[in-house]
């Protein structure tokens, strides 16, 4: 067991974890952050995307021990009472159906817009290449990212 200290959505946690424990399982099963789902086992789908020290990571591809000392933001910590502009844009553009990819898609979008606040359609499609959605055909996801960009996303 290894001792780690991780801040998740603004709250500090100290835990003993197995070195092999994935960050996503730490978040879901030890911290209780079930808003972040798991969609694959090869880091292709991106459903488990969270921000680690402000940068998007696939939490199935990070060990909990690697997150020691870091600040993790999940979909549950993104809104502050009101919906985050990216969350609102996904709702308003009908950019989700079953919603399983949505937490990862929204977290990846916040990172995309931080890097490139006004992306073109091609830049949006390339920027979200690591996040798979089976429901929407991405049409409305692209529109939502454009809408969020227009609304201006605070860094």
């Amino acid at each position: 067991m290894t001792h780690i200290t991780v801040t998740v959505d603004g709250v500090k946690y100290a835990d003993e974890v197995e070195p092999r424990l994935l960050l996503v399982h730490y978040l879901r099963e030890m911290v209780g952050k079930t808003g972040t789902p798991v969609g694959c086992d090869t880091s292709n789908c991106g459903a488990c995307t969270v921000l680690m020290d402000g940068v998007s990571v696939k939490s199935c591809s990070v060990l909990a021990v690697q997150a020691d000392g870091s600040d993790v933001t999940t979909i549950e910590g993104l809104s502050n009472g009101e919906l985050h502009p990216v969350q609102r844009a996904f709702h308003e553009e009908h950019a989700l159906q079953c919603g399983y990819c949505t937490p990862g898609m929204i977290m990846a979008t916040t990172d995309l817009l931080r890097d490139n606040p006004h992306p073109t359609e091609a830049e949006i499609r390339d920027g979200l290449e690591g996040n798979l959605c089976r429901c929407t055909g991405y049409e409305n996801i692209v529109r939502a990212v454009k809408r969020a960009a227009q609304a201006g996303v605070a860094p």
Partner: protein
Amino acid sequence: MTATAEAPAPQIGQARLRKEDAKLVTGQTNWTDNIKLPGMLHMAFLRSPYAHAKINRVDVSGALQQPGVIAAYSGADFAAEQGSLPCAWPVTPDIVMPPHPPMAVDEVRYVGEAVAVVVARDRYAAADGIASIEVDYEPLPPVLDMRAALAADSPKVHDAGNKCYEWTFANGDVDAAFSGAPVVVDRTYRQQRLIPCAMEPRSVVAQWIGEDLTVWSATQIPHFVRVFIALVLGIPEHNIRVVAPDVGGGFGSKLQVTAEEMLAVLVARKVGRPVKWTESRSEGNMTVHHGRDQWQHVKIAADADGRIRGVSVELLADMGAYLMIITPGVPLLGAFILPAIYKMDAYSFQCTGVFTTKMPTDAYRGAGRPEATFAIERIMDELAAELGMEPLELRQRNWIKHEEFPYTTIGGLTYDSGNYEAATQRATELFGYEALRSEQAERKARGDKVRLGIGISTYTEACGWAPSRILGQLSYAGGGWEAATVRVLPTGKVEVVTGTSPHGQGHETVWSQIAADQLGVPFEDVRVLHSDTQIAPKGLDTYGSRSIAVGGPALVAACDKVIAKARVIAAAMLEASEDDLEYSAGKFSIRGDPEAAKSIQEIAFAVFAAHSLPDGVEATLDSDATFDPENFSYPHGTHLCAVEVDTETGFVHIRSYVAVDDVGKVINPMIVDGQVHGGLAQGIAQALYEEGVYDESGNLVTATLADYLVPSAADLPSFVTDRTETPATTNPLGVKGVGEAGTIAATPAVVNAIVDALRSFGVTDVEMPCTPERVWRTIQSGGTA
């Protein structure tokens, strides 16, 4: 004085934003894998690495030595109680239906079949336990090729042989249609095996409390799962509750009664604690039922002017190793619709179901109809090429004209309504058809290495999975009705219970829109409940684009009953005759005296108090209804796809895609567009990207999302969608269903475009998925490599 009460704006037809989204965009979801129960244990399965083998011995004792492992079992431990997984569609009287034990006992027949289970404190410990089990297999020859499987000397998947069934349909004189026909085109098409890949992996939780069992499952069909737990395991149905919590997509893959659901129930009973199982993606790709996998031999006969004389189809359909819930029926769903929108004199369809040592196939978005639509729309293009005719003109010459509806087709279906002319005209306008044809000719003339191709798909389909009577005639074991309950609460808020089971479709929003309009109550005042057999005990769930077409009218009927009950009470409250009351905008008023009115909310409270109900009137407005239509519904549309094919690399770029669909009356256009977008993505994915591949030993080599190419945003174009609206005449809402239309239409549109781009190279087909390598090789061989 005129009525002052403002009628609420009609909800039907409005692009209302979804009620479902609030929790989904904030992570406040309840996926099955999120469930944590006191004392809950985790299961993991050991799965066969062999496509076909005898099991000589399974030794689970090593697993029990691992820390945190509570129990481990092999198939022998379940043999007396596990029953056989159900197939609800024995399509012929002599169909071979082999036993399908949830856990293999003495023989495995596909890679991934469960042979042992470990129950442990957490999923990591369960995985450690799995790694410590020893199995002695005696490999048997795999059966991987459908055609070879039918040879007399082929190894057998089951003792009864590899032929599962042969089913035929014929109408008209097919021999006469083909003999002496000026033109006959004969083609064989491959429908590759597909893996559904809903984003949420399957997951199940089972808990016993005394005699009572609760199962939470990531399923499309909680009602069927309840019935089949009772039938397969012999557990009294009234002791069983099945809940489908938030479910992350299905596309047919969660229209199944699974081995893991049954085993979770049995394991939870054995260990006396609740258990959870959640698959990994690679486990799911191996063991969630697959889709498609057919060889289609298609022939079409026509006169010199392009009039179709007849179509004949011979199909080989891969069942996989066992029959699952509707495995053998999937090809039949295509059989009746294959003649599509065309008139002809004769039609025959013969299907042979074949067992192989692969994962069973079953319904995947469109189920039978994408295959049929591909066959007819591809061969229509080939016929056009043979005749030297513009493919759109060939279609116009043969399609059912809008004034000819209702029309009974050679496939035996009666299409109630449609307007192929209108949808096609709109699509060609949006597409810029003539301009693209000119550009295509110009690029071909100058020998451009990047060729333009135009693909057409003028599809129709049969959906709204219902008419119970017709399903019975087709030997399907279940019915097709749907149920709704409307409850008006004391404060006037409304609960709608539906027997459908959404997993992304937005029923909570759409059913609220319907109830708001029917009852004249605010959209916000309606809550929609579903997917829990204790809350919604009656229902037949969600698949086959049936929810709105069958469940929607059930809701309308339940609302009408509520209003009828309320009318009696309103008449008493207003001291008027029922006949003098009119109901509008949520109020009963006396004709000619709009001031004298009682709202549905006032009536609901009066019913709750029940102080002065008329004699013999029950103290409830709540009402149940079921709906069972007399016919399927028939969405149709015209899809046009322009591709640019790089003839030096074989790379296909979709330049534009226009979909004009007619799904009847639209309740929520935003949701309908979303369904079309997602459907298109899956149809395009079959054409260009996806294929479930087994190697020569029967190992699935596309078990991960690294190897099975589910397209990303970067792999797909932006879509242009529009609609025509020809209401269905077979239900009071005029709706047809939209869940599968995009997928059904898109695949042939894309492949037709690719072949169209390359026809001058002698290309008449490219096998799917049309990867750059396949396209390039086909060009090089100048044919159909």
